[in-house]
């Protein structure tokens, strides 16, 4: 008897089903982006700016969803990478006359490079779960202290204000994202890219292996997967997305400040993802929109007690929908579907 290697190939029935569900996702995403593209014509000037900010915030929520929802590692450091992107953008944008692409690239590469190094030491050093969360929390505290102390570069406590908007050259012409609508479309541009990346990860075997690692890392490594490498890659990709979100946010808000790189923002991002449902891509988006709009509306009506109301809302949602709003909805749908099947059988 000789040993035989086995190689798996996906079978045809499955790939056809995959293709259909893929086309549906793509169609839905296209519709969403198209709706977002025409949205500014229905919004007042303030809501356009608010929308631009929410789009940038959604990207950082997506980045956490990738790491926490998919790979199971809860990071308190998301604001650190967001802030690094924001400061990279603001420092280069205010000090140097650089091609917009370079500035945007710096907002991506600096956080991603940092995450690669940090992630390498953490994940290969077997730091996981609660310990990982604690280290990332410490990391954001350090990043915040660096930003506050390094006044000559970062503007210290006040941060960098009057940050110029982004201008991206495309071949012979330039796209100017500095106007109010331009800032919105910058938000939409990076949102579209991030959504595309997130969908790609979800459908890829990379994403599947991350989910497997989330479920049982040992099992995955006994299948031969280099799990620390996968986690490091997920962390790096997540930081890259968070960094671009930060860069775009600095451009949209014309500001980089220490409270964009602190633990409180990290916790906020976490609540957005938790409210929406950390296991769902749509959860990150729904959570961000719901929490930002709620935050904005309630703080208008109750400027002295809004955190109480927003906090209460968070507690109630988490109590009744532990899997988040989208998770709760998915469960409800599944229950209805199974009831229908039972009825059909009866």
């Amino acid at each position, binding site marked *: 008897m000789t040993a035989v290697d086995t190689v798996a190939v996906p079978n045809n029935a499955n790939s056809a089903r995959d293709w259909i569900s893929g086309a549906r996702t793509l169609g839905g995403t296209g519709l969403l982006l198209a709706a977002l593209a025409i949205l500014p014509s229905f919004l007042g000037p303030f809501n356009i700016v*608010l929308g631009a900010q929410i789009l940038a915030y959604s990207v950082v929520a997506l980045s956490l969803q990738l790491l926490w929802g998919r790979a199971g590692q809860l990071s308190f450091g998301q604001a650190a990478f967001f802030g690094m992107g924001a400061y990279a953008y603001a420092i280069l944008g205010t000090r140097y006359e650089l091609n917009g692409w370079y500035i945007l690239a710096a907002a991506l590469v600096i956080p991603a490079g940092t995450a690669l190094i940090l992630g390498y030491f953490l994940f290969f050093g077997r730091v996981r779960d609660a310990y990982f969360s604690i280290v990332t929390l410490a990391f954001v505290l350090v990043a915040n202290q660096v930003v506050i102390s390094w006044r000559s570069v970062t503007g210290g*406590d*006040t*941060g960098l*204000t009057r940050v110029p908007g982004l201008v991206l050259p495309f071949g012979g012409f330039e796209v100017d994202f500095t106007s109010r609508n331009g800032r919105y479309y910058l938000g939409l541009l990076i949102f579209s890219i991030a959504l595309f990346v997130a969908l790609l990860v979800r459908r890829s075997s990379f994403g599947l292996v991350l989910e497997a690692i989330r479920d049982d890392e040992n099992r995955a490594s006994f299948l031969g997967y280099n799990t620390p490498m996968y986690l490091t890659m997920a962390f790096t990709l997540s930081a890259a997305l968070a960094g671009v979100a930060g860069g775009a946010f600095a451009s949209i808000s014309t*500001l980089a400040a220490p409270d964009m790189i602190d633990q*409180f923002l990290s916790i906020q991002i976490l609540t957005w993802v938790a409210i929406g449902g950390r296991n769902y891509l749509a959860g990150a988006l729904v959570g961000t929109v719901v929490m930002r709009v709620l935050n904005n509306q309630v703080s208008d009506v109750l400027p002295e007690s809004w955190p109480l109301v927003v906090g209460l809302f968070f507690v109630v949602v988490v109590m009744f929908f532990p899997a988040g709003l989208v998770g709760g909805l998915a469960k409800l749908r599944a229950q209805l579907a199974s009831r229908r099947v039972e009825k059909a059988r009866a």
Partner: protein
Amino acid sequence: MSKSNNNSIEDPRESNKLGRRLVLKTGLGFGAAAALAPVLAACSSDAADETSNTGSNDTATSPDGTPAEATGDPIKVGYIGDLTGVLAQQGQIQLNCFELAVKQINESGGIGGRPIEAVTEDTASDSAQAIEKSTKLALEDEVVTVIGGITSSVREAALTVLPNEKIPFFYTTFYEGAAAGATACDEYLIATGQIPNQQVAPLVPYLSENVGKKYIVVGNDYIWPRGMTEVLEELLVEEGGEVVSSTYFPLGTTDFGPFFKELADADADICWVTLVGSDQDTFLQQYKQFGATTQIVSLSMNDDIAATNPEISEGVITVQNYLAGIESGNNTKFLEEYRAENGADTFPIAIGEGAYNSVYLFKGAVEAADGSTDPTDWIPKLSGVSFDSPSGSIGIDADTQHAITNSYIGKVGADGVIEILDEEKAVVPVVEGCILS
């Protein structure tokens, strides 16, 4: 209470120039104040000002003599401040004062017959939220001016939004002025709080004469405390005093032990405190436990803190543009009306009085511009407006758009009441190189 940054490396020549200028410009005032000190301490301080003034209680009346209801189109005025978070207590007092002014004005005919409609927003001491709320006030509420702000970071955030939309911002908190690279000179910035030459400059000569010239500094580790120490050191060059050591602690420090070792060795006359919020309370608590006797001078002491914690605040000297102990008819009335709204044991504080004054200065300027709410019309009128405020007559300096205010030096008594020791009238703000008029 102000925070700011310094994103340029300081040029020592610049600093020195500023220092000299500070002393030169206020030198005359000190002489007068020092000579008058005993008299001023003895009698009440509401000497009439000869400039024309619109007056806080300058009530518009209808033909039959009763106060007119404001009935015209409302004028929208925004308030933005720290209503939640670590500075919520101060922010709340600031808002109370702002609302009091709006109420008084609306009950007495509004601004040229138009009522003020106040729109209140919270910054939560967060730059991003300050940006968001400033944008909302400007674009959605379409306010014609915004009043408020405590931290310098929130001020800077507001100033990145509001000038672009041509909306003037009244900043009502004492701060570091131009000392730390902060925005102190902007055609859409009007400051009704004090800057160092109004706060520190009058205080130091008083301390030299009455307490001593050897300082030990303890502050929070950010730019406002550091900036204030710089200003102090420059003033001490002229005074012949010195700062023997400076220690800075991060915000949220719970153990000031290392400083007390310094203090014990230093043999200083004055302990110069630039700690803010709960850090100041913690420090004062430990100072008392340590049994230190060096005179404390704190720039962030106020009547509210003193009344809340009299046992640890007792003996602290401060300097403010407003103290509840000011003896004048205006202040008595102000206190009365403030307490009627907010409770018998409450105290307005300097940043609140600044907000109160801002609303009246705005009113005066708009009325002087024949009711125009276009800032290009009313901002030039600001320097011609004089307001008989709770802290005395104040106006706006045309060059800097900062308030010309009185400075009150006070000391917390055993009962938690700040007793006024000395005052200097109409100190002109100095912002190097700022000529807006």
